[in-house]
């Protein structure tokens, strides 16, 4: 066993790479929302839904984006929303451009097929991105699957591929249920047969509510968190979140210990 294997076994569960990738596609698919397909120059390590990649763009910090889907051993997809300097720059990059990327990073979602009668995905806004990938992975799972997706309005809607129950909410009611996606979740969840596992990603408020709902009905829940990251790979200790460990409150790194956490352990 090589040293790096030894070390990895010790502390790092996954293989990660820092490499060049070619932009294969970069298309606007909803209001300020883009889908980008990246082709790494060499094989990209196996990844899990919930894991993310760093894109090295402008400025000092790279930018983290959830893997939103994979195509074979190399290509993967991200979905992103233009909100600032780097995403702006990203949206202007042409097919064929080369960027540096690192990944897959962090820990993804866990699903033990046998333990649940249903899986409930809850995404708000661009928070649907990692859930798209999870949705793909749940394709052959026998349990029931529900994808709750919420957006501000109909111009922002992006929907996952594949079969299953997709439940749509918009805050302004311009499509689907009128209200937030957790309002919709609250109304529907009682109808599903327990035990359920919920996977949520989106703004902090959404996650907090989703956890409350999970607690109320005694379902398991994993949430994918976002914090500002300097490194995305455990170097800087900047991306902490408060976590209720057995020994009491402590900080966990969103980039390395997360971004997916047991929702009930996070102190919002």
């Amino acid at each position, binding site marked *: 066993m090589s040293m790096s294997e030894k070390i990895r076994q010790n502390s790092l569960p996954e293989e990660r790479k820092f490499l060049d990738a070619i932009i294969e596609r970069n298309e606007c698919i909803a209001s300020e929302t883009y889908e980008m397909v990246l082709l790494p120059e060499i094989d990209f390590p196996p990844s899990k839904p919930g894991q993310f990649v760093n894109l090295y763009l402008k400025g000092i910090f790279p930018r983290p984006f959830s893997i939103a889907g994979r195509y074979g051993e190399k290509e993967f997809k991200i979905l992103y929303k233009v909100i600032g300097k780097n995403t702006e720059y990203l949206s202007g990059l042409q097919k064929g451009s080369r960027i540096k990327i690192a990944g897959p990073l962090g820990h993804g979602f866990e699903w033990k097929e046998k333990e649940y009668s249903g899986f409930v995905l809850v995404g708000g806004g661009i928070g649907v991105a990692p859930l798209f990938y999870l949705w793909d992975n749940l394709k052959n799972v026998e349990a029931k699957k529900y994808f709750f997706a919420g957006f501000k309005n109909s111009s922002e809607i992006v929907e996952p591929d594949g079969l299953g129950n997709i439940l749509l909410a918009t805050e302004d009611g311009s499509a689907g249920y009128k209200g937030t996606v957790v309002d919709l979740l609250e109304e529907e969840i009682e109808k599903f047969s327990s035990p359920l596992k919920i996977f949520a990603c989106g703004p902090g408020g959404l996650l907090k509510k989703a956890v409350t709902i999970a607690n109320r009905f005694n379902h398991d829940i994993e949430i994918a968190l976002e914090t500002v990251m300097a*490194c995305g790979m455990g170097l800087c200790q900047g991306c902490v979140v408060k976590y209720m460990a057995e020994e009491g409150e402590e900080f966990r790194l969103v980039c390395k210990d997360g971004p997916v956490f047991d929702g009930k352990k996070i102190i919002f």
Partner: protein
Amino acid sequence: MEKKSFSSGLLRVKLRDDFILESPIMPASGTFGYGDELVDMIELKYYGAIISKTITLQPRSGNLPERICETSCGMLNSIGLANIGVDRFVREKEVFYSNFHGKRIVNISGSCEGEYLEVIKRLEKCEWVDGYEINVSCPNVDRGGIAFGTDSHVLRSLIGKIRNNTDRFLMVKLTPNVSDICSIAVAVQEAGADAVSMINTLYGAAIDVERKKPALGRVVGGYSGPGIKPVAIALILKVKPELDIPIVGIGGICNGEDAIEFFMAGASAIQIGTAHFSNPAVAKDIYNYLVNYCAKEGISSIEKIVGVALR
């Protein structure tokens, strides 16, 4: 990963007679985890030494978020010396450090002399530790740290005591947030340090205009990255003529040309910090640049350009 050199010696630098680095490049404390974080992702052979994040006697969870913030020319941090504490460090990192091909430096801090000495005492038992970098200048902790770094008398006493407790390579990291860095550097040398490393972060802050609040939870933090390079170069140029011991240059180094600037200003080796975030393979890039530079300039050793700007 055997303990043999892969360079032809072009980049070999001597920081003490028995402390020779095969590459002058080290990671700056706190920007490279405990040293083992990227072992699967990049090649560590480009580092002549590994430097751990700051280790303290007790584990520290660090400051409340937000702990980091990007600025136009660098970043701010108020991590607050979050670390697993010396005992867990010794237990968990032995495998990695023992296998690392270069020098193994542990960066340490404490809130009083006793704490520094106790951490040293525990590390002295680990034969896989080659040296210490003493952090007396972290701007992110309330007690301790900063006082040592700004008062040359207190510092001289601390370093003197540490010197009495170890024969290992001893490097002291200087803060730029002082009126007169030369007197501090000289005090450190007189107290028996083998090298100084400079600079730690500058005081810095930013306002989150949207939230109308300081961007960092602790308001003021440490400023690092390209924006601090001119300060680091200036302070090295000032300190160099006053010192006999080598200087290890730190501050905003992002590429090979930056590194050359530091050598020419008087640094015998360099540390890379913030640049790891925008380029995890920065050490490799700089290493290759330096090798090519030596070839192009026809010099047999990078040591030949140390301090040339002052000659």
